[in-house]
């Protein structure tokens, strides 16, 4: 008898419902149409931008010339190969080369947008910056580079940069927060003071100094921004660890003899991830915005790298070239809006006060 289960218990388990809390949150997220669609659109955009080289490139993807196949996308060919005069790399936008590539049964496949991010079209028909036309769908910037290509590559760089910064920030923030929250006491005290000192460093000032000392590069930017980007999150994780470490399930694990590392990893961390996941899209949009602002100020990526911030600053300098500012602005707004919608949906999905219907 003593082995039987109470018949009148008010919480009867539902038949086939063993889903993890994570899966339940995912289901709730999917029910939020706006957030879920934002995720789909954003993922599609990111995946497309990963294939930028195929979508927008000044080299043909494939060339069939005099009975042989060439792959200019992955290899450099001197102009002579295609009947040109020079030993230099081929400029496939040159009308002379183009003509060679289409005659005598030769053919080539170009990317849908036949410009790379840094392609200068020496054979353009209009002065730079050129308004949108059949040649350049979104026009060109002040140096004659195709705007669509710039936006595509710039979006990719910005998003990947944002992801990298977010991931590094999360790893560092979770680690720091976990150590403070779990061990508490003096460790916590020391760490907190360290964070206070560290966070009072003038971040922008350091960036300006470092960009003067070192050659500017994307990886340097990631390192510098990561050094300051983990502190906000570590406070939340610290609070979660503080709360969770005195839960009875942690005590029970201790009583079983489970080691500190395992308790942190298996017991506390999964239960402390809510703020991390909730802030993920917001952190990413903050990172994207940070890179854009630095580029706008000219402190960001090295010159020649496609970047949304640099385009914005061009738009500011050429206020009558409306296509530059408007299209860059649109890309930024859409990106940040999608991330915000996703963030809102995630926050609702992870809200413990919301019950499942």
């Amino acid at each position: 008898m003593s082995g039987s289960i109470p018949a009148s218990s008010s919480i009867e388990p539902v038949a086939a419902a063993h889903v993890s809390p994570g899966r339940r949150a995912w289901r709730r997220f999917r029910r939020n149409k706006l957030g879920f669609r934002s995720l789909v659109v954003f993922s599609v955009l990111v995946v497309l931008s990963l294939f930028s080289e195929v979508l927008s490139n000044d080299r043909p993807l494939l060339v069939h010339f005099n009975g042989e196949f060439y792959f200019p996308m992955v290899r450099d060919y001197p102009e002579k190969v295609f009947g040109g005069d020079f030993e230099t790399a081929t400029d496939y936008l040159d009308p002379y080369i183009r003509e060679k590539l289409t005659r005598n049964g030769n053919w080539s496949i170009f990317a849908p947008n036949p410009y790379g991010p840094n392609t200068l079209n020496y054979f353009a028909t209009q002065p730079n910056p050129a308004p949108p036309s059949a040649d350049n769908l979104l026009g060109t910037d002040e140096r004659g580079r195709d705007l669509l290509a710039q936006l595509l590559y710039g979006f990719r760089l910005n998003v990947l940069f944002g992801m990298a910064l977010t991931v590094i920030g999360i790893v560092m923030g979770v680690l720091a927060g976990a150590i403070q929250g779990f061990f508490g006491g003096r460790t916590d005290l020391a760490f907190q003071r360290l964070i206070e000192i560290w966070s009072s460093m003038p971040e922008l000032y350091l960036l300006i100094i470092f960009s003067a000392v070192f050659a500017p590069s994307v990886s340097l930017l990631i390192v510098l921004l990561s050094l300051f980007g983990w502190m906000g999150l570590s406070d939340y994780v610290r609070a979660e660890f503080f709360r969770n470490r005195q839960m009875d399930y942690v005590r029970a694990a201790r009583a079983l003899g489970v080691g500190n590392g395992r308790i942190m990893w298996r017991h506390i961390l999964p239960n402390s991830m809510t703020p991390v996941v909730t802030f993920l899209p917001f952190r990413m949009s903050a990172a994207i915005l940070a890179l854009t602002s630095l580029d706008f100020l000219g402190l960001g990526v090295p010159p020649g790298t496609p970047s949304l911030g640099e385009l914005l600053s061009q738009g500011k300098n050429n206020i009558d070239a409306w296509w530059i500012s408007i299209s860059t602005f649109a890309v930024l707004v859409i990106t940040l809006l999608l991330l915000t919608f996703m963030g809102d949906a995630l926050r609702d999905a992870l809200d413990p006060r919301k019950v499942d219907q």
Partner: protein
Amino acid sequence: MNLIDVHDLRVSFGDKEVVHGVDFSVAPGEKLALVGESGSGKTVTALSLLGLVPNAKVSGSAMFAGAGGEQARDLLALPERELLAIRGRDIAMIFQEPMTALNPLYTVGDQVAEVLQLKEGLTAREAWGAAVEALRATGIPDPERRASAFPHQLSGGQRQRAMIAMALSGRPRLLLADEPTTALDVTLRTQILDLLGEIQQHNGMAMLLITHDLNLVRKFADRVAVMENGYLVEQGTVEAIFSNPQHAYTRKLIDSRPERDVVEEPAATEPPVMQASGLQVSYPVNLPGFAGWFKKGEFVAVKEAGFSIAPGRTLGVVGESGSGKSTLALAALGLIPHRGELDVVGSRWGPDAAGNRAIRRVVQVVFQDPFSSLSPRMTVEEIVGEGLLVHEPELPLQARRERVVQALRDVGLHEGQFPGLLQRYPHEFSGGQRQRLSIARALIVGPKLLVLDEPTSALDVTIQKQVLKLLQRLQREKNLSYLLITHDVDVIRAMAHDVMVMKDGDILEAGPVAQVLDAPREDYTRTLVAAAS
């Protein structure tokens, strides 16, 4: 003529009806107890009378007699404005947890005075004086000083008294008391009940007492109404219901007092599982003022404790909150440092984790709260199998799974009732089932001693009985020893062989269960036992 007549009361949230047509009435000056387990709808029923359930659809009628021959009005049909006038003045309410029911930012005097200003139209000065008098009437010592105290500066009993003063200051004709004593220590419960009884008689006020505690009902109420799953299954006078319950559920409730079913005299030849002498546990506390900057004070939670637990026996530790009994449990588990001697089958807790591993296998624990003692993001298999990962890491997956299934079977959980049991998450189980999971997690490493820290306090009475039965069976089958920490004398009576009574860190009295409970030497023990019967 009844003070309140409730007819066909239904309450639903969204599409889900939680109270299915309830009828009851309270006469002036009568004490009606609404009894049921958690989820039975008793609190919702009471709150809906005052329109205090947010987002709920309420239907039916609740005719509340007017004062001084006025016509009776239907509370459920009244507009919010008129209900506002009734709340606090005609019908007042006291809640279970006075700490959260009182506003922490105002002094208790302010809070009582506010009611008087609003309901009696007194000036601020008059109201303060009346508030002090109201606090005095509830037996708070030195009410002039206490009135300017904030809720956190009062003890639990004083807070509940302040709540009562607040509720009664409008001289209500009906008092709704929602588990008014559940959050209090047992010795305080009697005092608060006596106070309520006194005031109730003095003012001729009617009371609707919402509770799960049958002892309290028997002592206090005139009539009982029993609720189960939103239905009112039975009502009648206290004598009639307790002597001759009609409904099966009422019988089950009355029958839910835990029964003693333990091996009384086990072989005492083996050495004790745990033996302590001069055991002392202290916490560092912040010293007030400037001194606290440089050194910490010390709060001694357990003083000079000595005990011994033989194999197959249960040592019950009974005491109120703050008596140091839970600290004693943590020390026995080696989770906080202690001074003095504490032997666990011949070895002692040391400072390093590796050295303690062997002892951890011997001493295991079951905690009070079934909701916080299981990690919500681990499956049953991970939770129960954890101990094997630590103590028998070489065990292959399949063998580990078999052991998990066996441990679950031992506590009465098996695949037959719960398809896919191993892959389920804790939120799919009820409180009693979760407590079984906790026990399985402890049992899987084959311990000799289980520390049970209030193992059934968070459970409904009928579930409590089942879990205690399970523990009794496991003790018989596996010759387990228990260190049972509880505030509930009934549980001690059913489970323990020996008892220690703790108060403020001291062991007041210890000995065999029959001797301590039936012939207590100390006054304090007598109060505890009297409060529980």
